[in-house]
């Protein structure tokens, strides 16, 4: 039965993707992309990847849709008809190339182990070590959290730095200088009373849920990445309903930028502290009197650093885009 459901969801994903190719109205395309994100999140739940599903639901269906919509409001809603004279538009050639590549890849799947096989190479290398030993070495139930923050701590550090850098990149590209800031504009959804009141009730709950996901990540699905995006989405909701000017009072630009850097700094400092105590970089065993305590402390602070950076960078990105849009003078 379960496999039947995932076949249906995958078929819906393909249908949505084909619709995205066909539709010329970019507003509709963005909505379809949101549906695509939500469908893939449901698929991840079926595949037992609850941590991933959390993240994809917040990012794929929420944040990315919002960002693309904000960009669309600056660049125009409709895609130009592609077959104007003199253009390089060659759909037949592209289709041929895509079909050929796809056929080759499908031929390649013949060597893949079947779906769900327990003896597939991906299941037999490294992973048994994580599943069997993490209970004794790290002593937290969520293996995803222990792999993310401890076993593969270097990797995660790199990823947090990438996110931080992307945030800086967005700021460098489209940050509006204060002198050009416009007078207060009304929020785009201010007139919708129901939305406003319901969201007003929801925002505190979203924030608390974000904190729960952050600090409960060792015991259930959750952790810094998920908590960061969930926490940030509460601020997006506020900004959309009550306007950027009101949201600016809650979120101070300088502070958020400092916080984004602070998260990375916190992560790196945990690593350095382990070195000062005589271990390797990010070797949490050296953080406390015994190994397991050290691991707990290390994971707690590292996840906190991840959460702070992810939430701040998401808020920075959203606010920078929205401010740019206001500066360009189009209130809706």
């Amino acid at each position, binding site marked *: 039965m379960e496999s039947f459901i995932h076949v249906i969801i*995958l078929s819906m*994903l393909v249908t949505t*993707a084909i619709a*995205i*190719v066909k539709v010329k109205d*970019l507003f509709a*395309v963005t909505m379809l*992309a949101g549906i*695509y994100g939500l469908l*893939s999140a449901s*698929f*991840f739940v079926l*595949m*037992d990847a609850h941590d*991933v599903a959390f*993240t994809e639901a917040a990012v794929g269906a929420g944040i*990315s849709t919002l*960002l*693309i919509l904000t*960009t669309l409001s*600056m*660049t125009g809603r409709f*895609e*130009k008809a*592609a077959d104007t004279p003199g253009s390089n538009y*060659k759909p037949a050639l*592209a289709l041929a190339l*895509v079909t050929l*590549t*796809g056929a080759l*890849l499908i031929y390649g*799947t*013949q060597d*893949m182990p079947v*779906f*769900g*096989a*327990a003896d597939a190479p*991906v*299941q037999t290398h490294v*992973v048994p070590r*994580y599943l069997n030993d993490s209970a004794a070495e790290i002593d937290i*139930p*969520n*293996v*995803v959290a222990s792999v*993310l923050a401890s076993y*593969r701590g270097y*990797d995660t550090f790199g*990823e947090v730095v990438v*996110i931080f850098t*992307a945030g800086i990149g*967005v700021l460098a*590209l489209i940050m509006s200088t204060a002198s050009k800031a416009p007078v207060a504009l009304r929020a785009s959804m201010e007139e919708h009373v129901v939305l406003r009141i319901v969201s007003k009730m929801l925002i505190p709950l979203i924030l608390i849920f974000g904190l729960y996901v952050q600090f409960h990540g060792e015991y259930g699905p959750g952790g810094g990445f*998920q908590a*960061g995006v969930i926490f940030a989405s509460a601020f997006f909701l506020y900004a959309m309903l009550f306007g950027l000017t009101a949201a600016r009072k809650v979120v101070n630009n300088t502070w958020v930028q400092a916080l984004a850097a602070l998260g990375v700094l916190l992560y790196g400092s945990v690593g350095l502290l382990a070195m000062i105590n005589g271990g390797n970089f990010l070797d949490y065993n050296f953080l406390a009197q015994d190994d397991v305590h050290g691991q707990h402390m290390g994971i707690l602070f590292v996840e906190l650093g991840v959460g702070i950076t*992810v939430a701040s960078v998401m808020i920075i990105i959203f606010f920078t*885009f929205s401010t*740019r849009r206001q500066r*360009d003078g189009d209130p809706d």
Partner: protein
Amino acid sequence: MEFLGLFNYWVVIVLMMIGFYIVICSNNLIKKLIGLTIFQTSVFIMYISMGKIDGGTAPILAEGVTLYSNPLTHVLILTAIVVGIATTALGLAIVVRIKESYGTVEEDDIHAKDKQA
């Protein structure tokens, strides 16, 4: 059940190719980025499908459970999603700048203006 053994991977390839098609065949830069997102998500689906074990459960240790799905693929994809949105945002920021400098986000028009200049 046998014929479904590779179904997930075929869907992944179809989605990947649809994304690829949008990237090379669409003229609009925002649509290209959406195509890239579709491509990216197909890779996520591939990794997560590979990590699933028949009869397994989410990799959160509990008593009486012996079979867990692969936590490593989950970790890789979980971070990739958040990195993905951050880089997409960077791409969108570049699109916004292109719009401001060229007045358009259609690739043809941008090339035409480049040639004029």
